[in-house]
Each structure stands twice: as structure tokens, then as C-alpha cells.
């Protein structure tokens, strides 16, 4: 690691000012991704701005029938929040299977999103929950559906001077279920991650969300699968077909964590299993 300058401002305003004057500065929240990159030399920032003291990034609150999740909330904070457990148990589960307790007490939801790893555990559930990214900069603010936030591995639509302040989650309709496939029970990255949300009415699917992780350059929504499920009643045959369709919709690669064929197969199995769990 090479030496760097470190700022720890107290407010979003100060963060944005610093970003404007030092556009190449890197933001650090929990540091569980950035610090590793710095140690390995793949990131060599001259300036690092810590977000730890920024009050506006914290917390979880209800606002006008929707929920606000501060980007600086730690994964441990998510797993310990009774409100989140009540409204978003699937999201809480996803946070609980990331790495280890030590990592979870540092890592933040905003970091998990902005690091834009295809295998990030929180992203498929947030996609399935129709999360909206609330972005601020010195020029103003914008709200972008999380589904449009990612451009590629490690790449997001955030422009220079912008930060992810919070996420808005609509009142959830129906249940959401996340499953992570990894060889080990903890301390592992997802080989595939699958989030499925279904809103049903008298057994019929009114709305479906199927979001997949680690099977493409970004986490993605399997929209054809969602369409296949919408308006139908879940049957074993339909659930099987949905799994197969989702496997067709994704484009995994062979890498050290899994072969493409295996990832596609796991998408097929986990989509079906999640649907069965939501039956």
C-alpha cells in the first residue's frame, strides 16, 4: 500500500465539497473492499474520504409509505434491526450470510452496492424489492432505480462528485426469498445468488421479481422469467420452467469460483427452490 491522505468529514456537504476539489479521491465506508484493493495495489488513491462520521448516511426510517435505508448502515446493523427483520426478512437474511461477523460490522450496504461486484449478496434482494438509489452531488440529487445503477463489474452510473446517500424501498408487496449458493456456510462469495419476490392473490402471481447475482457482468433482473410467472398459478411444472428460463436469461462466465454450466444449473435449481419456498 502506498501513503495517502485521509479525510473524515462530518457531513454530506463536506464530503461533496471534498469530492469537488479532489475528484480522484476514493470514498471509504467500511473499507472491506477498498482496503483490500489498496493492499493488493489495484487501487492506489492519493486521497481517501471516510464516510464513517457522516450522520446523514446512517439509519433506517419509514417515510410516507416507503422506507429509507442509509447507505452507511452496516450489514451487522441490518441484521440487528427489528424493523428490517419485520418488513424485509429476506434482505436481513442476505446481509447475514455475507462473509463473517467481523466483516459485517464494518461493511455497509452502500459499499456493497457501489463496489458493484456481480456476486454482492445484497443486490439481488434489493433489486427484487424495487429499491431506488438516492444519489446526491453539489449539482443536486437524483433517484435511479437500482436496476439501472450498475454498468459492469466495479462500475456504476455514479458520476464524479456524486455519492449514494440512501436507498428507498417501497412498502413490500408479497414475500421475498434470497438464497446464496456457496461451498462454505460462511466466509464465501456467492457462486450464484437468487432473490425471488412474489405478490400473489388467491394463489395467482400478480407480480414477480427474479433477481440473479454472480451470473453476468452485473446483478440482473430475469425479466422473461418474471413475465412467465406473472398471471399464473404456481405449479411444479411452472416452477421448473421458471428455473430453466432464468438459467437461459443469465450469462455467467467460467472463473475460479464456478464454471458457467454449473452456475446456470444452480440458477435453475435455486429459482425453483425459492419459488417452492414462496408457495
Amino acid at each position: 500500500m502506498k501513503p495517502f491522505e485521509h479525510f473524515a468529514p462530518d457531513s454530506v456537504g463536506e464530503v461533496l465539497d471534498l469530492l469537488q476539489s479532489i475528484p480522484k479521491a476514493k470514498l471509504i465506508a467500511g473499507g472491506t473492499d477498498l482496503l483490500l484493493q489498496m493492499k493488493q495495489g489495484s487501487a492506489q488513491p492519493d486521497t481517501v474520504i471516510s464516510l464513517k462520521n457522516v450522520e446523514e448516511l446512517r439509519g433506517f426510517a419509514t417515510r410516507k409509505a416507503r422506507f429509507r435505508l442509509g447507505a452507511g448502515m452496516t450489514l451487522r446493523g441490518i441484521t440487528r434491526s427489528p424493523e428490517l427483520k419485520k418488513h424485509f426478512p429476506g434482505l436481513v437474511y442476505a446481509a447475514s450470510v455475507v462473509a463473517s461477523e467481523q466483516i459485517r460490522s464494518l461493511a455497509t450496504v452502500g459499499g456493497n452496492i457501489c463496489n458493484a461486484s456481480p456476486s454482492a449478496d445484497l443486490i439481488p434482494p434489493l433489486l427484487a424489492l424495487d429499491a431506488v438509489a438516492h444519489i446526491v452531488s453539489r449539482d443536486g440529487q437524483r433517484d435511479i432505480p437500482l436496476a439501472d445503477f450498475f454498468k459492469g463489474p466495479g462500475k456504476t452510473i455514479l458520476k464524479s462528485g456524486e455519492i449514494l446517500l440512501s436507498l428507498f424501498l417501497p412498502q413490500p408487496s408479497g414475500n421475498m426469498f434470497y438464497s446464496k449458493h456457496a461451498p462454505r456456510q460462511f466466509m464465501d462469495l456467492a457462486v450464484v445468488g437468487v432473490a425471488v419476490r412474489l405478490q400473489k392473490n388467491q394463489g395467482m402471481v400478480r407480480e414477480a421479481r427474479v433477481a440473479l447475482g454472480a451470473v453476468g457482468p452485473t446483478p440482473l433482473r430475469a425479466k422473461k422469467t418474471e413475465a412467465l410467472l406473472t398471471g399464473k398459478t404456481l405449479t411444479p411444472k411452472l416452477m421448473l420452467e421458471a428455473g430453466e428460463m432464468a438459467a437461459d436469461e443469465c450469462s455467467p462466465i467460467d472463473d475460479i469460483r464456478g464454471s458457467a454450466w454449473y452456475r446456470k444449473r444452480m440458477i435453475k435449481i435455486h429459482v425453483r427452490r425459492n419459488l417452492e419456498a414462496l408457495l
Partner: protein
Amino acid sequence: MKEFSAVGKRIPKTDAPDKVTGRATYGQDFKLPGMLHGAIRYSDHAHARILNIDTSKAEALEGVKCVVTADDVPETRFGFYKDNMPLKKDVVRSHRDEIAGVVAVNEMIARQAVKLIKIEYEILPAVFNVADAMAENAPLIQPNRDSNHLITNTYNHGDVEQGEAESDVVVEVTCKLPYVNHASMETCVIVAKFDHSQNLTLWSTTQIPFLLQKDLGAALGMSPKNIRILQPTIGGAFGRELDIYPYHPIAAIMAKKAQVPVRLCFSREEEFRAGPQRQPVEVTIRAGAKNNGDLTFRDVSMTLDVGAYVSWGSTTPMVMMETTASFYRVPHVRFKADCVYTNNLITGAMRGYGNPQSSFYVESAMDMLAEKLGMDPIQFRIQNANQPNTITEQGLKITSCGLEDCLKALAERAETKLEPAAQPHLKRGRGVGGTLNVGGGARIYRSDGCGATVKVDDFGHVSLITGSTEIGQGSETVLAQMVAEILSVPVDDVRVINSDTDVKMWDVGVHASRTTFIAGNAACLAAKEALGQIFETASELLGASPDSLKAENGQIIAPDGKSVSLSKVVRSRHFRSGGQMVFGQAFYDPPTELVDKDSYHGNISPAYGFGMQMADVEVDTETGQVRVLKLICAKDIGRAINPMAVEGQIEGGAQMGLGYALSEEVVIKEGKVMNPNFVDYRLFTSADMPEIENIMIESNDPEGPFGAKGIGEMGSSCVAAAVTNAIYDAVGVRLTQPPMTPERVLAALDTKAAG
């Protein structure tokens, strides 16, 4: 049987409190005044000619003290085949090759500076597997050899053709065993310092302080008598530090040029790149049996990729042939192993030393035979089990032997059938696997001995100064227990001194499950000599003959009941005209022999340990995921000097073995490690560990101290075999390539489904 006061007791490791509270000074914590930090520049290619090395930019970086290259040292070579050198000059032969080093005020600057060294290469063709390395016109990796073929080890007893002719069933299986890494918590670290008279002191995590003196002397072109090695608390080694590696002399070269102490500490990535790995093996075994269940023959041939330089990996066939020839009774055995140079990683010693590999193929074949015979796998093994007081065809003198008892204990547990899984896609199965392990060292040098001295001071405090090395295995505790038992003092009154080559007596090193046995016997002999001196003086004080005295709870007691404290005896002996100290010494070299260099016959160890494990697994047939539900470990350990420490060794071994079975593999691509970190090199974590039941079979070895045998390695050796047999039992596919990852299991299930 005599009631013991210290031996056989469950005592927490004496060094544990300091370790778990952070008070222990590990090598990585160690600092000297004025110490600088080194970093190594490795090769960028698997095989290349070095055309030019430009160190000017590195030297110009602020904070850099000096840069070292091969030009700074006399051209020396080291290793069994004298094929390695500290810093490479003309040719690099693998990605691990050291070209230069930087000394700087801190590690960060040193690491930055090595990147600034500009090296021009001419890339040479490279080979990354045995077949390519053996091909005609393959690029020659070591210049002084005719080919990349290093050595063939062959072993024979009986007549395999006759054995096969007598067989009613024959099986054959080809297995591929992977590279794995020791993954010690502490990475390799060394601090080197020269004094004004050019004496070198090293603080090192080595397992072989006395051999390292000699090897380093050769590598540095200096006399071993000017090299002193100190060992700080060592954070795990598992065989990694059983040889000299280039970073040892490089640290000394750096310290010499910088003229200050220099510390060199591996990053985790370097640990994977430059450190040794467990030897990978491709092996085919043919084996046969008669309808009555008697084994007839084994025919094994294997190839081993030893990388670009030879270390201990190339000698693992010696251990594999032992399992092949002597584990269970087999009348006809043929074994052939070819070691070949490639441009891959180097291979070294690692816990089990060939046994994890040989247990896997031998026990796979055993289950295949049992199935063909329609026999219960445990009963089949009992029928062929080694027996006490027998000599194997290879010449192993098996004295104590609890193999049959281990198997019977498992048979008893196996009477409780597995509960079926809760869901139809989950299938459960059960499998066993075993190992034959040396139980008290292995004579691979002319001496397999260890020296010890025991002194008792005026206050009754006992120092055991032993040649052996503590690497976390618990030797300090069990050695203290043995000495405390003999002198009848509390274990807390015995301190073990084991960290300085200038102080301690010679020892060959910590390996081959030998410390409890060899260092234990040495410590017991020294303690007995000290006790003799104590009795000699006490007999004067008590007016009774030395033979009639006994030691109990720190007192020396005469037959008439009169007693005197041990410390008083020592003072009486010391503070008198012509006084003497209480000071016992011993050198124990076990009654074993070097194996014949051509036939490999001979009794290499004074005792043999046997272990069997039974794994219950659950396989997810849709994902290939294997969960181990329970692992029962039945081990013939001779006697447990400290049952808690034995459990620690077995359970720690199980963790390593489960990683080998299911999740660990150093993945290499064109000689480069693709997963040099703990994200993608998957150690088995505490969350993945199954329930473990320990069954200790105490066979009471006649030569072992208090009947004990070594247990350090066998806990890890037979896990993968038990797991693969359990997977077969669950889903009917035979996995031949650990780690048996979900992807590999699912691919095997697909192949089976496709017919």
C-alpha cells in the same frame, strides 16, 4: 497399572494462555533496534532468460537502504540436488523464482521498490505438466540434467502377476490429488542479523534449526558454526518449514549488505507463490482379493510434478510406498513413482507427508474390492488388518498395533444406522478410511535422535532443555508432563527451553510425528538421570539406599517413611565442599534403520500409528454439495500423555483433512497461482465442521515414552478417503479427484445419469 500424577491428565497447553491473550511473541511480532525490512522481487515468467536487471529506480526511492541481486553473493547452490540458489542470475524457472530484494525503512516502501526493479527477459518455452515435461524436445528446466525426469522410485515384494492370477476380483482406479497449502496462521518470517565478527543470528520459524544451520552455511558460503538460530513462538508450520528455502539466505544477504538487522515477512500471496505445497500426484492403483476376502496384490504407478526445484515433495513416494506395501496385509506389491521437473510450484513436506495421498487411493481401492466381494467394508478391513508384533514384507517392525481395535470400534458405531435425509434430493452415506503412519519419527538421516538435558535448581524448579521445536503441536506441555511424572513435581514447575541452537542439544527437526516419542524418550532418560543424582544425595540425608527411595509430590521418601523435599536435596548437593548440580542429559536415537537405498526395505520407525475414520455425509443431488454430518476418529495412539492435546491434534487434523477432501486446492494456470488468498483458497471453517467423536485406542507401545506414539499427522491423513467412500455410499459415484467440490460431485452425478 501404576497411577500417574501428570501423565494421562487433561491439561490445557501450557503456552495457550499467552497465545490466546496476545502475549506470546510470534516471529511476526519480533523487532530489533535498528531493524529494516526486506521484500523480494519474483519472476514475471514461468521460464525465461534474464537479460538485464535495472535496480536504479528502486535504489532511488526514498527510504530504500539497498538492493540485492545475485551479484551480491558468491554463486552457491543448495537443495538435495543442488538445483536451487538464493537469487537467480541467468534463468528463472518458475513464477516463484527470486531475482532481487530490497531493504527499506518499512515493508511498504520495500514492496513498492521491488516493483520498480526493471527486468528484461527473453521468454523461454515452459512446461506445466508431467506429460509435456517428459515429451521429446521438451525444454530442459535444469541445465545440468539430461532430461526433466528426476528420479524413479520402485518397490517390490512378492510377485504381482502371481497375485493377480490368484485374485477372484480385481479393481482399478486412477486418482488425481491436488496442490494444497499449509495455510499456517503465521506466514513465513525471518529476522537476520550479523554481528561485528560476521556471526549470523537468525530468528526463524524453521522446523529444522540444526539442519538449517548446515544448509544455510552451504547456501551462504559460510561455516555453520557461525550461524545461530533462535525460534520465536511459531504460528503453525505443518511441514512448510522442513527445508531451506531461498528466503532464508536472502534475509542474510540483505542483512549483510544493509549492515543492520533485516526482517523478511511473507504476505499471504507470497506464502502461496513462493512457499512449498503438498505434493500433487496422479496415480493408478490396481488391487485384487480372493472371494474369501483376503487381499492378493497391489500394483501402483504414479507421477509427481515436483516443480522447478527439488524439495521434500520428491520424497513423498517413500511414504506412499509404505502405505501401499504395508497398510493391511498384502502378499504381492509393486510400486513405481516418477518425479519430474516442470515450471510449476515447488512441493514440500506437509502434515501426513504422502499419507493423505496414499490413504486416498488405497482406501478407495479397498472399498471397491469390498463392494465387488459383497463384503462389509469394515469387516473386509478387519480381515486384512495388520497385527501386533509382526514384520511386514517391507520390513516394518510393527510392535504395538491397534488397527483391529480401531476398526471394531467403528463397526460398533456403524450398528447405529444412518437416519434417512429429510428431503428426497438429499442422500446420505457412510464411509471409512484409514492410515498407517510412522508413530515415532522416520530415519531419513543417519541420526533420528534428539538431545535433552534436565536441570533441577535450588528452588525445585525444573528446566527441560530439549532439541525439539514447538510449532503449536503441544510438545512443551507433553514433554513437561513426562518430566514432571518422573521427578514427581507439578507440571507447572517444569519449564521447557527449546528455542536456541547455542543452548539446546541437537535434534533432527519437528516432523514425522516424532516429538512426543523421540524428544519424549530423550526427556525421560535425562529426567531419570537427574532423579538418580537426587536419590544419590537423598540416600545420604535419609540413611537409606538409593534403590529403596521413591519420589512423590516433590518429596523423596525412604522405606521407613522419612522424607526430604526435592529442593532441599538439590541444595544439599550443591552447597557443600566439592558440591555438584543436579543435571541429567540424554541423547535418544531410536532403534531403527535407514531403508535400503535401492529396495526401500527396512524398519524406518520405532513404532507405527494406525488410524481409522468414519464419515457420515449428506449429498445434495441437485447441487452436488456435500455436508459432513459426523466424523468418528478412532486412533491407535499408544497412550495419551495428554488426552486434551490428542483431541486437539485429531480435530485439527480433521479440519485440515476435510479441507483436502472438500474445499481446498491451490489452482495454478501456466505455473501461476490463481487463488493466492483466503477468499478463493477455501479452508474449512468452524461453521463447516461436523460433530467429531474421538476414540483413543491405547495400545501401549513398548518403546514409546509411557507407551505413547506420535499423533501429529494421522488426524488429517484419512479424512478424504472416508469422505469419498461415504459419497459413493450415498449416491453411487466414485470421486477420484479431491477436493470433491459441489461442481465436481454434480458433474460426476451427471455422468452417471447419462449412463
